[in-house]
């Protein structure tokens, strides 16, 4: 049907596969935390202090089970009643029943109420945290990617002293675990020289608002977290780009371009475009691990973001929170990968040629 539009067909096919992947991922994200035998209500009970009689503990436990939709309930409002079996024990909802409720709520844009951050809504937690995570990670990753690749390509092309200095440096950076690097930044630039603050997303005495004050404070707090990721990422990207570049330099088209006497920048542009393809896939992958990476940054710099929310949710079997955060991660990873897939389709002549052949059939 879409044979005359191979590109559109390619995009739709890919999109279809990504949608199926999405459904599978959501289902796995739902069931995975429930596989552990630990009941989230037990955790809450554990924190609710001592001195409760057995009867009080039972009443409290039932209240939470009901609140979190883990037992069957009849009626509504103040007349809600827990459905009980013949022994008077509350009837638990099955995983599948919870899944159906969850999907129904998701379609209405409701991700539920967090167990641990009760009575906060999961959507609110995500809304508060995601802007910080995105504002730190996206520019860092993109800048690191661009700077790393440009420097890597230059190192490959120029060789000589630039490469001899740059390559070991980049190799060293990329091999550095970035939490160690982050701690070193704090040690030198925050504790030692007092140039930048050691922690937080903005100064404690500033009110978050659209004011110069807030933005300058946020920018000041942005520097160390930014560099903790940026430098290491750029180092890693540069290494990859340099190897790809050296490989491409030996290819016939570059030699031919040089023989033709093309300008250096033109040859470098050819080189860049071809060596870049695997690097683009790498970019999509680094966007995918963004939230996990954010956690480390958040811990080192007490920076706001989604990573910590996810960690505490997982530690506490906070089902709605885990589901909500993994939904965001799944969606962003899939979107990033899908975009790269489509981009590669346009950028890689081989993929493009494949599409053209498809057209011929």
């Amino acid at each position, binding site marked *: 049907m879409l044979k005359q539009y191979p590109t559109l067909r390619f995009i739709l096919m890919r999109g279809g596969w990504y949608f199926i992947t999405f459904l599978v991922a959501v289902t796995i994200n739902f069931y995975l935390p429930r596989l552990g035998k*630990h009941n989230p209500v*037990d*955790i809450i*009970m*554990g924190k*609710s*202090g*001592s*001195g*409760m*009689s*057995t009867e009080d*503990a*039972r*009443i*409290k*436990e039932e*209240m939470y089970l009901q609140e979190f939709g883990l037992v069957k309930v009849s009626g509504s*409002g*103040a007349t809600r009643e827990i459905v009980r079996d013949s022994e008077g024990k509350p009837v638990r909802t099955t995983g599948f029943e919870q899944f159906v409720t969850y999907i129904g709520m998701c379609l209405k844009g409701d991700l539920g109420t967090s167990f*641990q*951050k*009760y*009575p*906060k809504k999961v959507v609110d*937690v995500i809304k*508060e*945290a995601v802007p910080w995570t995105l504002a730190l990670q996206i520019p860092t990753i993109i800048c690191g990617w661009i*700077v790393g690749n*440009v*420097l890597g390509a*230059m190192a490959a092309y120029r060789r000589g002293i630039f490469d001899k200095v740059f390559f070991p440096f980049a190799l060293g950076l990329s091999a550095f675990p970035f939490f160690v690097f982050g701690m070193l930044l704090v040690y030198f630039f925050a*504790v030692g020289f007092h140039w*930048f*603050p*050691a*922690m*937080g997303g*903005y*100064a*404690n*005495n*500033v*009110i978050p608002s659209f004011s*110069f004050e807030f933005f*300058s*404070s946020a*920018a*000041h707090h942005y*520097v160390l977290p930014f560099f903790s990721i940026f430098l290491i990422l750029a180092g890693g990207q540069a290494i990859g780009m340099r190897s790809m570049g050296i490989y491409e330099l030996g290819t016939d088209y570059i030699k031919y371009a040089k023989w033709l006497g093309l300008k250096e*920048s033109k040859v470098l542009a050819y080189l860049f475009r071809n060596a870049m393809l695997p690097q683009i896939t790498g970019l999509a992958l680094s966007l995918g691990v963004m939230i996990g990476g954010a956690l480390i940054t958040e811990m080192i710099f*007490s920076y*706001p973001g989604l990573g*910590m*929310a996810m960690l*505490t949710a*997982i*530690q*506490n*079997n906070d089902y709605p929170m885990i589901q909500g955060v993994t939904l965001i991660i799944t969606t962003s990873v899939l979107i990033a990968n899908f975009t790269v897939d489509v981009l590669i389709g346009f950028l890689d002549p081989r993929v493009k040629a494949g599409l053209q052949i498809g057209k011929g059939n």
Partner: protein
Amino acid sequence: MMRSSCLKVLAVGALLLGLVSCGGSSGGEAGFPRSKTLYLAGSQWGDPNTFNPLVENWQAAWPVNDRFNLMYEPLITYNSLNGKFEPLLGTLVSSDPDKVVVDINPAAKWSDGQPVTSADVKFVFEIGRRFRNAATAFAIDFTKEILAEKLENGGERLTFVVNKESRNNPLVILDHLQAIRIVPAHVFEKLLSDNGNDLSAVQKLKIDKDPVVTGPYNLENYTNERIVLKRRADYWGNDVLYGGKEPAPEFIIHPIYKNNDHFAIALQQGKLDASQTFMPRIWLKKKDGVKTWYDDAPYFVPGTMPLLVINTTKAPLNDKNFRRAMAAAINYNDIKELAVSNYASDLEPGLIMNQGLEKKFFSAEDAAEFGVKHDPELAKKILADAGYKSVLKADGTLDHMLDKNGNRLPTLSIMVPAGWSDWEAMVKLAEKSLRAAGIDVREGPVDAGIYWSSHGPGNFDIVMRKLAENVTPSLPWGRFEAVMSTRNWLPVGGDNWMSENQGRYNQPGTPEYRPEVDSLLKAIPTISDEAQLAAAYRELNKIFMQDQPVIPLCYLPEQFYQFSAKQWKNWPTSDNPYAPPLLPWVGASTKILWNLQLAK
């Protein structure tokens, strides 16, 4: 060309960076000036979820959680230094085995101008009669009813009648009076009736917009990074309790850090004025102005003891000889020196501290006669006498243990929350000395989720816990109750939730059951004669040392009270003990706020 554009990018980047660092250092004073702001930390770790005083303690954000009295206030406060009760919303008149009498302060007012009345007190103390699942529902098990009578000065006299049919425990009523904060009945009754008398609907409200409070501060604003309180100009207590003086700081900010190191950095940089977090080797931070109650070791005042709770239903832990051998094997001095930076004096056997308010109940004679101290040879002897055998590897390290019938014993695990570094350090050192004495245990770090959910049903071999961690009027009774009471005894596993004695010590109905434990636990709160009380405590501590149901590891302070005098001075210390060593947000230490002075 490529190079020049690269250079441009770098130049622009450098310029932006320069701008940012200038902007950051110059700006930021407008919101909350440093000279008017007190920075306190260590009580709020995650996002603030709600400021509703009717939710469970751990669910609410600072300062509505725990026992903090900056927004909502209790009737009285307890001075953990001298054991005296100090007036707040009320004044303690008397307490005896039948009743506790408190006069409401006639000047006490809510921030909306309404007076504090017996209706407010009854609302929160008697909420359990209306909603059995309310956070303070437990109060009715102790207080049968609250009788109110008008006094000539316009105030009210409240008589808390001891619930003899239920818990019969006036001691815990005193605990409640200093811990349960009074909430405005007129506000919450209206919220309840607006929500169809559904408590869980009211619990979902965040109560973060102009809450009606009695305390000296109120919520100004909050984000996930910090909570800001503002001084109330019309606080009723300024005139009545502080001779017309206002608290010194206009704002109190609680920054929320995600990393323990940040408290130390902030204190050293003067960005934080006080914190209650564990900082190892505090003497190294002295040069940067970090101070503590005592200038030298032990730096802090002991108030609590972290302990190993033992699952006494599981072999070989069900054998008291084995437990006593464990207690003799552990090197407490190592734990004190290496894990908690010498922040306490030497541990004595038993569950009663040999100092402070508990000293009068401590018997050195009994400790020497019935208790065990660190003595690896004694540990080996107790094990050998009881028939246990430690099998060693070729290199002399422990391989496994055999019981008296020659059966191999499983390796025991000490459960501890992964990442709680000071706790893990204590457990690791305990593990080391236990293994050296031939006892097969290993540290078992687990996720916080597993940790919290395992206590109640007793799903552990040994678990590290800090019970009765606040210094309250009911200590040391509260500590004994937490580890020895069989009031709610249930077998291990399933839905069998026990909130005290989670190690299932002293199972009723078995030949080893010692009924005197429960009768002493029941009797102590009603004994008013000091000599009788000391004798009862002696007896209980003797049983504890004989049976060793849990193993205390060291003494620790109730709070790691550490402060910096860079911005604010006149903090209480051992030289100037005008308030207990607690941050100025709880108990009798809130008065620090009226005593602080600007350092410059």
